[in-house]
């Protein structure tokens, strides 16, 4: 019996103690018409050896391609120690630290995580995580509506340079609460949100402005001007940032005169593997004044009866298990294990290490752009500076280029044609610090050969714009 320790003697003794003749009798309160006999649709059990063979074969079939795709999930080096420690049973198989005295390990780690995230974002406080970047933005929108008491409109401005899946997720989560998410268009030259596009909204009641920086295109936004504009309108600023970029870029807490009000985003770049999209974790930080509006678990430091420092979940009066229908959110769990990994990652890298990672990502992506545009068919689409990701425009059908690159076991980038059809053949590319010069050369060589063969075959190619 998989994972069940009972011997025949145990079963007999236990049934006797209960006063039941067999195990089936323990289910006698279930209406008999509802009971099922054989469970069909589930295959027979496997031994660990058998399931291992199956899973190894499937994992190998998936090929481990060379990755130049980002678009919200980034392939960084992860120190071996990160997951060695994270998967220790004491972290891995513990639950939410309700019994604080028996959970000081997790609780202190979360307190350290909150400190690191507040430091990285330049904000006052942090929670202990949310599900992922997209759902963190959705929660930030709900939080802004609660926090901005002067605004009655429940209107949130969301530039279309914000990750398309974040916008969709936010819509799913807030749309039953009478909240309006208003698109703000981007500038087609720079790929950024320009203050001019907001001018017609001046004087209107706006609850918050979302600023993703670097934005989905990798482009750096004019964060100071946008933050100032929003605050002048009485709107809160929700920053969406990549935590690795913050080792290099001025953090949301320092945007404009007063800084962003809420900062959130995807924590995956901090030591979490790509792993098909999850589990990742969302982070959320805010100004001190808004802390009671923040969703999710929060850990505080306090003292015990002997006045020793200790850690505990706090501000629980916000949460669903206390406030039920009036809670700040229905969130119960956070992403504790991923936060464990991220905390160990940040502790190993330190400020300088993380800054070097950020700089190497930037330099590698610059080198990649340089190498990929050394032909007549590919050019950078936007003229604004970027962090570690940018959009390339192709003058030949993108699908014809991508397919052969996939065949070379390479992930060449994210095709933007579905989310941004107006951009034509546009590819979002990224080279993190984990890509070597040889990797970049390999991509460029394959691409050049593909372009050569396609243009030689007489495919219609539009000349590159000067």
């Amino acid at each position, binding site marked *: 019996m998989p994972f069940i320790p009972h011997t025949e003697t145990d079963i007999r003794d236990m049934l006797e103690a209960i006063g039941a003749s067999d195990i089936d009798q323990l289910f006698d309160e279930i209406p008999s018409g509802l009971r099922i006999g054989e469970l069909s649709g589930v295959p027979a059990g496997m031994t660990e050896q058998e399931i291992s063979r199956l899973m190894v074969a*499937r994992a190998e079939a998936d090929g481990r391609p060379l990755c130049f795709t980002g678009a919200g999930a980034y392939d960084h080096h992860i120190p071996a120690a990160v997951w060695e420690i994270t998967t220790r049973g004491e972290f891995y198989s513990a639950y939410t630290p309700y019994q604080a005295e028996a959970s000081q390990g997790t609780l202190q780690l979360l307190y350290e995580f909150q400190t690191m995230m507040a430091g990285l974002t330049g904000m006052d406080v942090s929670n202990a995580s949310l599900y*992922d970047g997209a759902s963190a933005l959705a929660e930030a929108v709900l939080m802004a509506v609660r926090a901005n008491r002067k605004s009655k409109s429940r209107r949130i401005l969301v530039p279309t340079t914000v990750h398309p899946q974040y916008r969709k997720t936010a819509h799913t989560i807030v749309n039953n609460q009478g909240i309006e998410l208003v698109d703000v268009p981007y500038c087609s030259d720079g790929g950024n949100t320009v203050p001019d596009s907001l001018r017609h909204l001046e004087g209107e009641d706006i609850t918050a402005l979302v600023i993703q920086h670097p934005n989905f295109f990798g482009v750096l936004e004019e964060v100071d001007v946008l933050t100032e504009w929003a605050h002048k309108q009485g709107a809160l600023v929700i920053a969406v940032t990549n935590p690795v970029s913050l080792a290099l870029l001025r953090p949301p807490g320092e945007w404009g005169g007063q800084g962003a009000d809420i900062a959130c985003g995807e924590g995956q770049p901090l030591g979490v593997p790509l792993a098909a999209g999850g589990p990742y974790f969302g982070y959320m930080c805010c100004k001190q004044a808004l802390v009671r509006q923040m969703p999710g678990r929060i850990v*505080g430091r306090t003292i015990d009866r002997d006045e020793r420092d200790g850690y505990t979940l706090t501000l629980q009066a916000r949460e669903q298990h206390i406030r039920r229908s009036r809670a700040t959110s229905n969130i119960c769990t956070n992403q504790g294990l991923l936060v464990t990994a991220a905390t160990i990652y940040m502790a190993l890298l330190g400020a300088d290490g993380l800054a070097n990672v950020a700089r190497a990502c930037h330099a590698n992506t610059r080198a990649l752009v340089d190498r990929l545009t050394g032909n007549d068919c590919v050019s950078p689409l936007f003229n604004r500076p970027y962090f570690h990701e940018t959009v390339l425009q192709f003058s030949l059908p993108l699908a014809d280029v991508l397919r052969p690159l996939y065949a070379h076991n390479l992930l060449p980038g994210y095709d933007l044609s579905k989310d941004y059809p107006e951009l034509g053949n546009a590819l979002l590319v990224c080279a993190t610090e984990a890509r070597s010069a040889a990797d970049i050369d390999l991509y460029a060589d394959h691409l050049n050969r593909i372009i050569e063969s396609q243009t030689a075959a007489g495919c219609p190619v539009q000349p590159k714009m000067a």
Partner: protein
Amino acid sequence: MLIFEQSRAGRRAHVQAPASAEDTPDIPESLLRETRPLLPEASEMQVVRHYTRLSQKNFSIDTQFYPLGSCTMKYNPRACNTLAMLPGFLARHPLAPESMGQGFLACMYELQEMLKAVTGMPAVSLTPAAGAQGEFTGVAMIRAWHDANGDTGRNEILVPDAAHGTNPATATMCGYQVHEIPTGKDGDVDVDALREAVGAHTAGIMLTNPSTLGVFERRIEEIAAIIHEAGGLLYYDGANLNAILGKVRPGDMGFDVIHMNLHKTFSTPHGGGGPGAGPVGVSKRLEPFLPVPVVGYDGDEYYWITEDVRPQSIGRLSTFMGNAGVLMRAYIYARMLGSEGMHRVADFATLNANYLMAKLTDAGFDVAFPERRATHEFIVTLKRQQKELGITAMDFAKRLLDYNMHAPTTYFPMLVPECLLIEPTETECKEDLDAFVDAMVKIQQEAETAPELLKEAPHTQPVRRLDEVRAAKQLDLVWSGKVD
């Protein structure tokens, strides 16, 4: 000591980051960071030692009996972790084409199929990231279904008063009023009160079965009929699915929507409070509203089903497909259990709970519903001890820690005063259950002869009872010291 207090300027784990600081000539000065973020500067060994030591300050399933009611703290097989973390799976970028992820997608598709089979629901989406998000999804689909029928006057969700707090919080998030239904003396929903509460304003009901009181809702078919006659839908909170796995299916009970907590029933790790995974299953009429993406199979290849072909979908709940790695662990667990193993989960979870209930009753403890069978969990109430000895459920819970056992869930459900909700799970052996009974008996004796042992407990943990009022009033959420 905090990691920051061990920090020394200039110390680093040198092999973990590029050695040189590359130039960033094209990033405007005004956008560059001027202040160094507060991160520790430590050697790799210091970091490893610090977090290893922190881990040792935790209770966990791997180290202690952990009978936390309603949380299903069963053994997390190590193979599930090892195999889900095979390099080929970890390297998969979520936006890689389907052709480069057939191995992964096959696992997801087969998991969907198995979850359909065990719940009796014809369609499943794996994407919700946790139980609470699964709940949100379920109620959002109920709303979308009513809206699609032009039935927009329904503004109320019924929730039993014993329900988990996420239920009412979720209903509010979906724009509904919450109406609480009382529980009868026998632990079942008060069906007469339910009958009075339903009407044209009823969007649906959120039910956990077995309920959080540790008993099976015997009149479930009648409840389903009442709600359906009123035009509402039934939502099943899968928190307690472990109790009935392979025995009875929510789909057969009349539920229209269900969520499952894979971190409970399918043994994925709780990770110190997440990640979870909360897939949803629905009846045929709700399938068009399922959140995307869903995995499809055409007999040849696995592929994503997205909003393009599901225009009525409630949409996306996360950036990619949800907690894929958790789903992989659940898949591996389910394959090892197989069809026969699923029955046994419910069999032995129920055997263990009823055994523990019988032994504790024999030892003189009061259970909340002595006439009822325990499901996979049951409630002990310490109301008598509180009245006679001034000893609370919290005191018992804290003292259990000194006996090297995690405490059961305390003060939930709120209906039962001074309650301990005890869920041993099927993976515990008889000796460990007996040891728990022994500890409870000893603590009861201490309560009578040396109550300060309980009042002052725990005595053996890294800290003693913490000042929670101070934690909430003098907020200290971020270390404010300076690193070296």
